[in-house]
């Protein structure tokens, strides 16, 4: 059974805003969500990179305590975007709890701020301090905490997938949700990812010499994907969710269809867990196109993973060039907000849908002087008014995991 899968609702919390209007305004005017790293009492004094893609605007939550009590900050983000998504979707409560709607949602590692409090108790002189680990700390911090807090809050009884593959977490959520609906296991899926503010992640990349450090005094100038003067990634926070539905079901209920997922691939490099791998990326691009039943010429926009690391951007450029040539326009959306980790795939998908709707392509921010090794592809350096018919959203993760989502403008 192969069914069409359409996107009917979306919501995001990003460093450049949590409404479509604000996000579009920043994409069209080059607004950056990268800011100074916040001070904390653990790592911030020792990290070389002093920048972060932060969510600095106030977010109002109206969650009752019975929901809040099992939620860490990452689940607040997750539940808030799903709340917004469901409000916009028009889905009725009976369907939401029918078992025909599932959830594919993940985070990099649950709630690190809650985990930090747990670990603190292990390093105190009095062993009885471990008794202070709260009954709900595991529920707040576990890897699938976002997915199940969503099912609890919205009474969702269908399948649960909780991918946790770092930077491909939410692109996998969308891809596996797409396959759930395409092959008839669910009629609809809420798909996405979230990550809260966390300096541990910065420390990890900092120790790997992968973080940006040269623009600490001017955060808005970094990250600089594909630029000759790029010096590494910037960690960010955020969340995003999309609602996927079987086409006939969506059409019959009069849903507002904003796009269609037509293909997905996920593979592994089968080797090194960190280094980018040209053949692995080439393969995931190819498999994604095959899955969509289209050739490379059909893709007119590529949302590149492009974290602004020295080698990652070069390898990705080579892979795009070898499969697509310089035909599709390419933008690195992380240039606006840093690398939002588990949520980057879904946020970049949502931003692509917004640009698809409005008929423009945002440029890669801070791309002033293209690295010659990245120059073979069609970089977008200025705001470009052009339609996007078919887009590829690429994401790659530690562990050698690669994904490619193919999203098409809706036509009946």
């Amino acid at each position, binding site marked *: 059974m192969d069914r069409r899968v359409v996107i009917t609702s979306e919501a995001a919390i990003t460093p450049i805003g949590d409404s479509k209007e604000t996000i579009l305004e920043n994409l069209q005017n080059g607004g950056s969500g990268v800011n100074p790293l916040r001070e904390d009492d653990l790592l911030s004094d020792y990290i070389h990179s002093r920048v972060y893609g932060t969510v600095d605007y106030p977010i109002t939550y109206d969650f*009752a*305590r*019975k929901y809040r*009590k*099992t939620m860490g900050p990452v689940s607040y983000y997750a539940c808030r975007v799903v709340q917004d998504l469901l409000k916009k979707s028009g889905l009725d409560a009976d369907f939401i709890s029918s078992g025909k709607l599932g959830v594919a949602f993940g985070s990099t590692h649950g709630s690190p701020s809650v985990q930090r409090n747990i670990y603190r108790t292990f390093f105190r002189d009095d062993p*009885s301090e471990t*008794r202070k680990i*709260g*009954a*709900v700390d595991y*529920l707040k911090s576990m890897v699938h905490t976002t997915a199940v807090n969503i099912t609890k809050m919205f009474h969702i009884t269908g399948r649960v997938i909780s991918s946790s593959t770092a930077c491909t977490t939410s692109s996998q959520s969308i891809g596996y949700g797409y396959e759930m609906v395409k092959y008839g296991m669910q009629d609809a899926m809420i798909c996405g990812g979230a990550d809260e503010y966390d300096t541990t992640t910065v420390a990890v990349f900092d120790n790997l010499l992968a973080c940006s450090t040269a623009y600490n005094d001017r955060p808005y100038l970094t990250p600089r994907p594909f630029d000759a003067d790029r010096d590494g990634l910037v960690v960010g926070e955020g969340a995003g969710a999309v609602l996927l539905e079987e086409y006939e079901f969506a059409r019959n209920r009069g849903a507002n269809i904003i796009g269609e997922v037509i293909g997905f691939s996920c593979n592994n490099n089968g080797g090194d867990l960190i280094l980018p791998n040209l053949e692995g990326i080439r393969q995931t691009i190819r498999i994604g196109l095959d899955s969509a039943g289209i050739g490379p010429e059909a893709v007119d926009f590529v949302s590149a993973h492009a974290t602004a690391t020295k080698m990652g951007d070069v390898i990705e450029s080579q892979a795009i060039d070898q499969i697509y040539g310089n035909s599709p326009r390419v933008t690195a959306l992380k240039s606006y907000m840093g690398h939002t980790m588990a949520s980057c795939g879904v946020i970049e998908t949502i931003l692509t849908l917004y640009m698809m709707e409005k008929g423009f392509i945002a440029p890669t921010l801070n791309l002033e002087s293209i690295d010659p090794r990245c120059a073979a592809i069609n970089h977008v350096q200025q705001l470009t008014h052009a339609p996007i018919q078919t887009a590829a959203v690429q994401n790659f993760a530690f562990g050698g995991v690669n994904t490619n989502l193919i999203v098409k403008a809706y036509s009946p």
Partner: protein
Amino acid sequence: MTREELQTEIYKIFREQFEIDNPAPDDDLKDMHGFDSIDAIELLIELEKILGVSLDQETKKDAMLHIRTVNQICGYVQELMPRKDAANTDVVHR
């Protein structure tokens, strides 16, 4: 601590920790106020603070089975108090 003082303390915990305002003393906390097993575990931690001792696992399991109302909570704590004094220990066994 008198029964009245204890009840005031319990109501304070319910208001501040569980956002349940002034349940009637014999309200079934689970059925009427959504007080679930996670809340009960957290309540026991608060009761340990009132008692100034740690409760052993069996005592806690027993409490989880039998405490459903504010009146029962107060009675349970009062029952444990003298034994704690008599045992003069930091751990109370039932």
